[in-house]
């Protein structure tokens, strides 16, 4: 039975999620309000000390996130990803089907490195421009790009903020992520883009003469692009090797960020201004709320409840993790879901369960639930906002048709994948 202290902490947690989900305030402010209430109550009631509050925040996650943000902001500024998008459009040769699949795959590929927000702004701008020139309906391209960007990076440690949180909490490294999930992600790229293709086939338009252009046309200094390419290769190499040197991924990310700022000629101040401080403050605040929940024993209670419902069965526990985390991610930020689930799953360590199975289920759940509706993730709402800039008013319901359909297809596939990869 839960005592009154626990109920207050549950109240703070629910209040934070409600404030954020109903857009009463921004995600970060909601989390900071929750963190403040949690800290004040914890200190006054003697649940924890002020030193413990600081320790609730996993600064390795923050460092990793900031390092990755800086590195790829620098790379993005070089124009490398823009060139990639321009080549994808050029080689579609005016065929809307090829253009559609090109945009889908480039979206997923770009989001392996860029944050979802930066990726959608880039891809939507490319898709919007070519749609206007060729007089195509932009909706299929914008919606598909948002869904593919949400999917891209599911199998990498740095592919999404929720992956970074899960990776740091579980101890899974870059290679583990690829080993457990790369095959699933590649299959999902094809499955999702095909689903979207059949959904939007009648709206893609006819083959037309494409504009002729040089993708490198607006690049002033090609060396900057080559340097950015070198940074990506170096980043990937270091992430594949870091465990051998006994350093964490956050150190590697920061090293790459500094190298990127040194090697590529960009304005460091402008790069720092583009850091997504909202997400960072949200994570910091939410860590404190979760720390409070953990301290009063609610997460242990939830962990036991999950195991009870699944009767200690490995497959059922994984299935419950996958579907419940995905469902929650539809309505609340998947960062909040990852931060909530990681300690719950972490408590199960030492119970003779295959932890890789559970962590993989959580990674898939938190990632796949992020594009079911426009409120599921920033990437979806930005796609709608960008469409509005193109004078197209896409309703939340219309977006949700594509989002919900692809999310269900992805989750069914992920369930079978987990069975095939880890057994029942």
């Amino acid at each position, binding site marked *: 039975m839960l005592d009154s202290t626990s109920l207050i902490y549950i109240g703070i947690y629910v209040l934070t999620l409600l404030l954020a989900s*109903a*857009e009463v305030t*921004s995600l970060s402010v909601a989390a900071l309000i929750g963190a403040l209430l949690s800290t004040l109550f914890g200190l006054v009631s003697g649940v924890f000390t002020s030193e413990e509050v600081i320790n609730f925040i996993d600064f390795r996650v923050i460092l990793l996130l900031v390092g990755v943000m800086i590195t790829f902001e620098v790379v993005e500024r070089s124009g490398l990803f*823009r060139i990639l*998008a*321009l080549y994808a*459009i050029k080689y579609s040769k005016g065929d809307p089907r090829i253009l559609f699949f090109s945009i889908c795959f480039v979206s997923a590929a770009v989001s392996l490195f860029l944050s979802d*927000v930066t990726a959608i*702004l*880039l891809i*939507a*701008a*490319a898709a*919007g*421009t*070519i749609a*206007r*020139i060729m007089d195509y309906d932009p909706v299929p391209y914008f919606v598909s790009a948002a869904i593919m960007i949400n999917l891209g990076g599911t199998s990498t440690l740095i592919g999404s903020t929720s992956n970074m949180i899960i990776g740091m909490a579980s101890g899974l490294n870059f290679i583990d992520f690829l080993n457990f999930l790369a095959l699933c992600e590649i299959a999902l790229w094809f499955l999702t883009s095909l689903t979207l293709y059949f959904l939007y086939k009648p709206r893609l338009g006819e083959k037309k003469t494409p*504009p002729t*252009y*040089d*993708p490198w*046309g*607006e690049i002033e200094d090609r060396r900057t692009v080559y340097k950015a390419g070198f940074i990506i290769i170096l980043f990937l190499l270091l992430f594949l090797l870091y465990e051998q040197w006994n350093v964490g991924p956050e150190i590697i990310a920061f090293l790459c960020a500094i190298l990127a700022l040194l090697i590529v000629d960009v304005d460091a101040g402008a790069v720092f201004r583009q850091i997504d401080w909202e997400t960072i403050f949200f994570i910091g605040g939410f860590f404190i709320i979760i720390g409070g929940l953990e301290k009063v024993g609610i997460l242990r209670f939830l962990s036991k409840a999950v195991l009870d419902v699944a009767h200690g069965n490995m497959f059922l526990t994984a299935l419950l993790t996958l579907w419940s985390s995905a469902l929650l991610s539809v309505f609340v930020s998947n960062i909040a879901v990852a931060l909530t689930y990681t300690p719950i799953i972490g408590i199960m360590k030492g119970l003779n369960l295959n932890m890789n199975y559970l962590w993989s289920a959580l990674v898939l759940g938190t990632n796949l639930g992020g594009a079911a509706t*426009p*409120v599921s993730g*920033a990437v979806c*709402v*930005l796609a*709608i*906002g*960008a469409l*509005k*800039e193109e004078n197209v008013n896409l*309703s*939340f*319901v219309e977006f949700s048709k594509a989002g919900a359909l692809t999310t269900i297809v992805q989750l069914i596939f992920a369930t079978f994948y987990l069975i095939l990869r880890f057994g029942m």
Partner: protein
Amino acid sequence: MTNLKDRILKRKKQSMERYKEERDAFEKVMGTPKINVSVELPKGYEAQREEFLDLEKEESFLKDADKALGRIVKKHLKKAKEQAEKEKSSKSESKS
């Protein structure tokens, strides 16, 4: 739902600014290139500051400006082309 959509989009104003910047960059490569020309309030019209600023949104003014600028741009591009051809021919003459 529309209210929620508007509230969320309002919060994403800064991102939308970045979207427009990105779109301009793509437009420069793939679409028709554009240049921006700024016009200052002419001397002697200081009293009509407000009216001058409103011209930016006035359709008939924009139409006239587009027509007039189009004519000027064509004139200058033609001149530049003739100049380049003249230079080319004078170079080939001096070589021979």
